[in-house]
């Protein structure tokens, strides 16, 4: 048949048309490059990536020494709630979402067994009160036979990292990591865990990994209005091992953030420096 000589060019022609169509249909739709996979690293204790702090359970008590029950602040709950909410937001923002606080306030003020002079010490942070109150709370509120034990308090998952917060009817602002084993000295423990020695407290508290104490006044008195919340977070930051970024002798700060000079700033305009966040695994 005479048509045969037309069939071949016609076929090539048709193939070209189809190929052109396919090429133009898909050109300009391709995705040139695929993202590199990033390796996920959880946030962790300051300088120690063995202990995760992605979920922090903060259990807060209003602790009043036996002889100061008359001083119980009427709106104690209200003055705690707003700052705790604030520091939770601040924490999440600083960690770029890498760590979150789930706080719970013990439903009533805790009247301590002893008078204020039993707990208070001379040092300005009031480390003695922190340890003693924490130990007492451990015995009375966390042991099943304790007089303050509440079945439904802090039974929900305590997260990766439980923290005990004490709002103290007295003076003090201090916080740190609990060394509970008791075998080593605080110095040895710090070395072992690669943590700053200044934030290690040897005490027999099993229910939490870190704890802090803050005078109730920082949350309620007008003179602390601007930086009281910053103090609260500053002490809380000690509970996962962050050390002070100022010289305890001279008071000279070597950072502008909440662990240094920034503790005098309002929490609203405060921050955690990138140096610290890197130690916490919150950024590379």
């Amino acid at each position: 048949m005479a048509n045969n000589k037309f069939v071949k060019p016609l076929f090539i022609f048709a193939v070209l048309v189809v190929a052109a169509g396919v090429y133009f249909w898909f050109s300009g739709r391709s995705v040139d490059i695929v993202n590199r996979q990033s390796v996920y690293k959880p946030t962790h204790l300051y300088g120690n990536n063995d202990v995760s702090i992605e979920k922090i359970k903060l259990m807060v008590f209003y602790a009043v020494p036996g002889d100061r029950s008359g001083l119980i602040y009427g709106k104690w709950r209200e003055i705690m709630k707003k700052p705790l909410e604030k520091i939770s937001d601040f924490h999440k923002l600083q960690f770029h979402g890498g760590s979150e606080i789930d706080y719970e306030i013990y439903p009533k003020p805790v009247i301590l067994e002893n008078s204020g002079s039993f707990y208070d010490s001379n040092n300005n942070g009031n480390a003695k009160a922190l340890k003693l109150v924490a130990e007492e709370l451990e015995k009375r509120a966390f042991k099943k036979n304790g007089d303050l034990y509440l079945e439904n308090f802090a039974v929900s998952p305590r997260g990766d990292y439980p923290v005990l917060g004490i709002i103290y009817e007295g003076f003090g602002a201090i916080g740190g990591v609990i060394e509970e084993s008791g075998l080593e000295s605080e110095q040895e423990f710090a070395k072992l865990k690669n943590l700053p020695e200044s934030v290690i407290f040897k005490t027999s508290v099993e229910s939490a990994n870190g704890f802090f104490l803050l005078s109730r006044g920082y949350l309620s008195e007008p003179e602390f209005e601007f930086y009281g919340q910053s103090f609260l977070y500053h002490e809380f930051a000690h509970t996962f091992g962050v050390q002070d970024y100022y010289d305890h002798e001279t008071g000279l700060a070597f950072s502008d953030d909440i662990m240094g000079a920034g503790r005098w700033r309002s929490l609203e305009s405060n921050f955690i420096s990138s140096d610290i966040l890197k130690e916490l695994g919150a950024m590379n």
Partner: protein
Amino acid sequence: MIYNFDFFKLSGRLRNKIFFMTVFVSVGPLIILGFLAFYSLNLFHRFDIAGIEDNLINQKTEEVSGFINNIIGVFELRVDYELSSPIASSSQNFILNELLKSNPALEEAAFVNTISEEINGERIAVGKETAKYSKTYPNGASDDVFINKSKLESFQQAATGKIYSGPVYYTLKGPMISIASPVLNANNAVINVLTGEINLSGVQKIIQNSRLGNSGYLYLLDYDGFLIAHSQASKAIKTSFKSQFFASDLLKGEKKLGIGGQARYQSVWGEPVVGAGDYISKFGWAIIAEWPANDADLIVSTVRNQIILFSLIVFIAAVFASVFLADRIVKPIKILESGTKRVSQGKFDQLVEIKTGDEIEDLGEAFNKMTAGLKRLEELKEEFVFIAAHELRTPVSAIKGYLSMVLDGTVGPVSQGARKFIEEVLVANQRLIQLVNDLLQVARSDAGRLTIDVVSLDIREQVKTVVSELTPLSNEKNIKIIYQSADVPGVMADSVRLKEVLVNLIGNAIKYTIGSGEIAISHEVKAQNLITHIKDSGIGISTEAQKKLFEKFYRVQTEKTRDITGTGLGLFIVKQIIEKMNGKIWVESEEGKGSTFSFSLPIAIS
């Protein structure tokens, strides 16, 4: 125009050639043009996207830089005295108050002491704040919150005379940066450091006010890859972009602008995008514009679909046009072809009718003129033959009459010798008369003037008459004529013409039998016809010759027939007559074994 859909059977070579060539010629350029259109469309589109994204990036980079530089500019303080003493306390407070009032983005501003000497009997530590205003302390902070900044990098750098701008930090009030600027005296000595915290909410507003197509967006990353601002609030994410290749390249200082810098990739939000970006070296930031590919390519897709649709329509149109064109060219050629066939058969009456309005129509007309010319030639020839034969008849008849009278002795005695010659002349003249009669007969037949008058008659009478007339001739050659005249029905025929036919056929049988032989005449009734067979034992006719036997002027040319005279018109005339009488004539023959001529005539209905 009605399409001949037989076309799709792909018959007719010329038509197919024209069709395929037309399709090639029209669709080939279409495809090439389509290619070029697509190619340039894509290229221009890439340029367009790059242009739009780059414009947005450049404009926003300028706005963001302008925003920060404006504040930094305010911080570059200089006093006109030469003393190396700090600005007076009251002036410090005034300046800070004014700064905060006039710059809403300024969260905090403070003067820091840089002078170690005792001033006015008071020594202030180097690095200690001496005045501070902020959003928290709008009327100035008291000295119990004054900080010693001597260990801070910001202060240290500014104290050496260089402006410091720190990394972005993220507060509940929004992203901020710290700046520190030296305050210089007339001798360019640093007499104070002015520090400030700038809220970048203004930068966020600049980025938020970005438009890129329907769904494109712009975002700004800090040195660590964290999001400072995003034009689409729903896309704000907290984690660092550093692991994303595009952002990480930018943060390393690369520029991704123009058609070469632009890239297509999967965004961190999981969408294929066309991205472009720039590195803002002054702050170590990256600004990125991402345009979802399906939105950015919307125009291209639409235009591409339109081109494909258009091409398809043109292609189909070209196919139909090709069919039409091929038909238009081939049809008149076919008409001409059948015309030439008719002419070759000697039919000049029917004209070809071509109305194409072009050269082919002209060709058709020329063909018709040629046919008319041929027809005229044919008519002239017939007329000539008729006239010539007619004019010859009178003289040859006169010759015959006078010669007969000479032989009869009307004009006196004729010697033996003269008689012999005159008899030869008579025979020759008789042949001439025969020729003239045949020619006239043929001319009449051609001109349609052959008159036939059929009546019912008994063919046996005719046969017997002709046989008895021709018996002397057969006896001379010693040929025996056998006529088996059974009981046959009457036929419809012209008696004179039928006699002519019989004379011709039986005469031929005698003529073409060499030496003695036998001629058998018989009848046969078949359907409504009476067939008459005239069988001879003559020389026979070759198959080749049988085909042309009944044509005008055809004579069988062989060694054996060389001496047999004839006009070559006899059988032609016989055929014309038989057919005029609604009969048929045919021959069966084998060379050397004789021939049988048969003709049929319709049986008369009594």
